[in-house]
């Protein structure tokens, strides 16, 4: 059986699933809208979490949280379930497909066979939609892929029950209750306020302060950790910023697109101006990535080069601080 579901490619998996499921239910919500209302933008350094033998940096909110906030703010209800038993998880999925209900699933990437080998790491917070089943094969709409694809029930079970940090435990979710009309205006304002609060938070590892903290770390790495580790860590920052699912520039472009769309919804031309500013900040993030990649390309980089990229980050932090203060005022 196959549900009449339209696949749209997106930059980020979670926004993409939200946007695709909403569109399926007749609400035209774009990916940037889902990202902005769900306050997806962030910067956070997570020192105690090692990913691929390097500390974790994230440019977005924790997995699952974007959809949660989005749902609350626009007034839809989502049903979520996690399972211990794979059979039960499969039964619940089949039941939904039988009722013509496409569902979102959280999966691990390592065993996702349609991903290029090089991209298959133990990352457990990927999202996709299942929209049908033919025999033992599930029809999959993975938002970061250009077209739809398939997984056998064995393959799907493996990725649904991947282990490690953020283990999905068969996590299945789908919207069950919708308001007559989505009240986007209020939701947008809430989303923006929350993002401003996160980015300006008085915490050393979060938001603008987190970016400054990271700059300080980069200055120290070559001496403290040695060139090899310093390069590995720097590479990790760039990968988290630019890997598939970020839309480039550490999600800054998606956020700028959200502000542009919001300026029309709220009839606030200031937001459109701020969107341009955010685009410029996104470009700075990309310049940082270019210079950082020069360092880890040739192993014999001088200390100076690390100081250089660190200074770039500090400039970005200053700009983002000014930006989010302005944004906070603009929606008052």
């Amino acid at each position, binding site marked *: 059986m196959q549900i009449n579901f339209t696949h749209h490619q997106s930059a980020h998996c979670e926004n993409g699933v939200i946007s695709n499921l909403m569109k399926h239910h007749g609400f035209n919500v774009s990916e940037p809208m889902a990202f902005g209302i769900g306050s997806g933008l962030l910067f956070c350094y997570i020192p105690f979490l090692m990913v*691929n033998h390097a500390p974790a940096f994230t440019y977005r909110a924790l997995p699952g949280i974007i959809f949660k906030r989005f749902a609350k703010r626009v007034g839809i209800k989502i049903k979520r379930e996690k399972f211990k038993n794979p059979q039960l998880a499969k039964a619940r999925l089949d039941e939904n497909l039988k009722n013509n209900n496409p569902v979102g699933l959280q999966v691990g990437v390592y065993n996702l066979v349609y991903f290029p080998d090089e991209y298959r790491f133990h990352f457990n917070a990927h999202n996709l939609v299942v929209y049908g089943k033919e025999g033992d094969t599930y029809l999959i709409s993975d938002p970061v892929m250009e077209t739809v694809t398939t997984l056998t029930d064995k393959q799907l079970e493996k990725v649904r029950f991947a282990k490690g940090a953020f283990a999905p435990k068969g996590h299945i979710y789908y919207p069950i209750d919708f308001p007559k009309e989505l009240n986007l205006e209020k939701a947008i304002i809430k989303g923006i306020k929350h993002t401003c609060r996160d980015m300006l938070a008085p915490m050393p590892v979060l938001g603008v302060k987190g970016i400054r903290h990271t700059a300080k770390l980069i200055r120290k790495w070559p001496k403290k950790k040695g060139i090899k580790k310093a390069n590995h860590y720097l590479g990790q920052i760039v990968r988290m910023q630019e890997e598939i699912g970020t839309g*480039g520039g550490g999600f800054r472009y998606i956020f700028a697109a959200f502000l542009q769309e919001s300026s029309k919804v709220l009839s606030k031309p200031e937001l459109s101006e701020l969107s341009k500013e955010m*685009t410029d900040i996104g470009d700075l993030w990309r310049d940082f990535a270019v210079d950082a990649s020069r360092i880890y390309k040739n192993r014999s980089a001088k200390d100076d080069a690390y100081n250089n990229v660190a200074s770039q980050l500090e400039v970005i932090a200053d700009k983002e601080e000014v930006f989010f203060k302005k944004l906070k005022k603009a929606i008052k």
Partner: protein
Amino acid sequence: MKKDEVPQDKSNLESANFKELCYAVDENGEYTTVNSSGWDPKTIALNKAIEEIKERVENAKQRVLNNKTSPIEYYMEFHKMDLPILASYVGLWKWRVKRHFKPSVFNKLSNKTLEKYADVFDISIEQLKNIELHAD
């Protein structure tokens, strides 16, 4: 980033024949989406990370052959895992898995425990005991 600045470099995405989606502004300053085939700075970062994993695997292999560690560590590195990930896949405490890295402990493991590891790594027990049987 402008629409025509969206990078179209060669990358590992080519092997799977897909392009990722990027957000960029068009001539009128409106946001739109453009497909990108890849971007050098991140391709380099990814390739470096893969190189590093290969080094780790090779290093583990040598240590297994020199009887410094058990094949479990080799297979763990081969599957891009670290200790917490492997421990949660086999469902054992981290310290127990770490102990199983000792060749002397590994040699005394019961078939049941070996089976657990072999299942996670998707190999036979013979392959688990002898990494030279493992085609990489």
